[in-house]
């Protein structure tokens, strides 16, 4: 299994990284918090840690720590627009139950 980005998401990430001027890729992960158990972490990555797993999708390097992977394995990251708002959407096959807004979830 792996983590992947849609072409559109990859295009945006590459653009953001280029404008930011530094960074090796994206860091995805989960942490415990929020109203429904787990919450996503989505950050720029400036360095690769020793326990990181590395995926490359549509030209973007995605780093995931080993503890997070089981919760998000097989996930596809998309970039969409909803009305005036736009941003990244997590299509995570592991989610069994999420809070109303989907910002936190249970597996």
């Amino acid at each position, binding site marked *: 299994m792996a983590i992947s980005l849609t072409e559109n998401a990859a295009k945006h990430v590459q653009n953001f990284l280029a404008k930011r001027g530094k960074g090796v890729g994206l860091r995805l992960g989960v942490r415990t918090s*929020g109203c429904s158990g787990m*919450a996503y*972490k989505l*950050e*720029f990555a400036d360095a690769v840690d020793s326990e990181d797993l590395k995926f490359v999708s549509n030209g973007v390097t995605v780093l995931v720590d080993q503890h997070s992977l089981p919760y998000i394995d097989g996930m596809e990251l998309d970039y969409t627009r909803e009305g*005036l708002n736009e941003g*990244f959407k997590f299509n995570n096959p592991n989610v069994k139950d999420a809070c109303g*807004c989907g*910002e936190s979830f249970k597996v």
Partner: protein
Amino acid sequence: MALLQIAEPGLSAAPHEHRLAVGIDLGTTNSLVATVRNGISTVLNDIEGCALLPSVVRYAPDGSVQVGYAAQAVQSDDPQNTIVSVKRFMGRSLKDVGEVGNLPYRFVDAPSTGSGQAPGMLQLRTVAGAKSPVEVSAEILKVLRERAELSLGGELVGAVITVPAYFDDAQRQATKDAARLAGLNVLRLLNEPTAAAIAYGLDNAAEGVYAVFDLGGGTFDISILRLSKGVFEVLATNGDSALGGDDFDRRIYCWILENGGVSALSAHDTRLLLTNARSAKEQLTEYPQTQITAVLGGGDLVDMTLKREVFYEMTQNLVARTLQATRRALRDAKLKVEDIKGVVMVGGSTRMPQVQHAVGEFFGQAPLNNLDPDKVVALGAAIQANVLAGNRTADDWLLLDVIPLSLGIETMGGLVEKIIPRNSTIPSARAQEFTTYKDGQTAMSIHVVQGERELVSDCRSLAKFELRGIPAMVAGSARIRVTFQVDADGLLSVSAREMASGTEASIVVKPSYGLSDEEITRMLQDSARHARDDMVARALRELQTEAAQLLDAVENALQEDGDALLDEIAQARIRGSMDALRAVLQEEDQQAIKRAVEALNSASTEFAQLRMDKSVKHALAGHKLSELED
């Protein structure tokens, strides 16, 4: 699900606690709102894709308020109720404004705040009553806040609003008041030229003196800034409050009248030709010549060709006036042209090639112009807002001042919930939501504490206040938003707001007051030494709080339905478990409390089931139940 943005390493926000912050350029002619998204400062457009919001507010006879293009469109039909360029009146009395004869408004001098005091801010009489410039500006800010909240999908934690460098205290205070009225939390007011310099990243550039050349729609400002240790200091400002792009339009308009043989125009024709003049001006930025075509009301046709050179010539003295003001500003700052390290161009009118050229020649260097000059101030304000909201690590930014110890509030069980962590740069603002603990709770005591420990008793108490008037609700369903804000002077203000009713209470404290460096060091060392104890203590207190809540709930249930649903033996069994839990509640033995909680839970399961059945029955056949009870 919610749409997420990429955060800086280690700064992902907790769910529902995104630190959304915006920068607002509240301009004389146009206003904009911008934010930092995925690490990039971007201007937020409205639903039609427009970035600019004309700073025009109209109070319509039906009581509605129009802002922006809608208000601008009816400006000449309803001039008395359509307020343009309200920024010129911010914080001003009628005396300050001077010549008001040629303005279409009905001014009212506000009552003085007291005998012998300076006159208050002027007001404008509209169909909706007398309006102060603060209220009019608040309407503009409200539209921008709504746009930002729709675009970012959440409530804003705060905003940085830009003001001209020459604004005095009264004008700055009026701007802050307008923001508060619009429901915005002002993180900081930022000087417009400083915002433009930040947008160009000059705050990370070499120290030195920079010039910001701002030619807008109706105003011209030149500012000389000195950057030292990451802080911009305004050395001098100059300008002309009646010189801008509109004057360039008017020159073309006069040229059309002179050379096209048109005269005695109706108001409609004047507007039409001014619009044509404006688009001709914009065309000439790209092309060496442009065609001006218009059919006037009387059937006359205007069809003329305007060459760039002709346009340059007729506007030469306008450009010269900007350079005169620039010279004066340099003289005031006691600097020479050679001392200027860089020049930033701001305002849509700086797009005109003759302006670019004249400024370049004057300073002997090419000005910075690769950012959109209409947006550069808002973009810089957004970058500042992003930092103040805590979305960037401190090492990215020059550390001006930090909060020495975390600030937080007391929650149930005597635990501390930290709201602003230590080492946050000031000014800083954070908000968090809390809820009620008991059914029907209508007041909440907010205890503000400072320190790194988990228990209130180990921290320093700063202040206490109460939020009253919370509507009675089931425990846990009220939403109380507590906002902590530390301003540039280190002043902490804490406010609590019940989200459904809007009830609010607040307090101001000076957190560093009376704490010596030694005391701060001791408090920090204690927190490191007691980290493990604190963790255990927190777990115990949380368990005790949970148990107390359970006891409360069962007690209430017994009082309500105990006799109706349970026989004496069953009631006694539950009471027994409750007594057992009460007996161990204050002990330090976590396991014992846990076991007692479980015992009470299982003893009351059947009772809970019966209550559930009862309420279902009640809902399905209320009448029958009441007859039975009779």
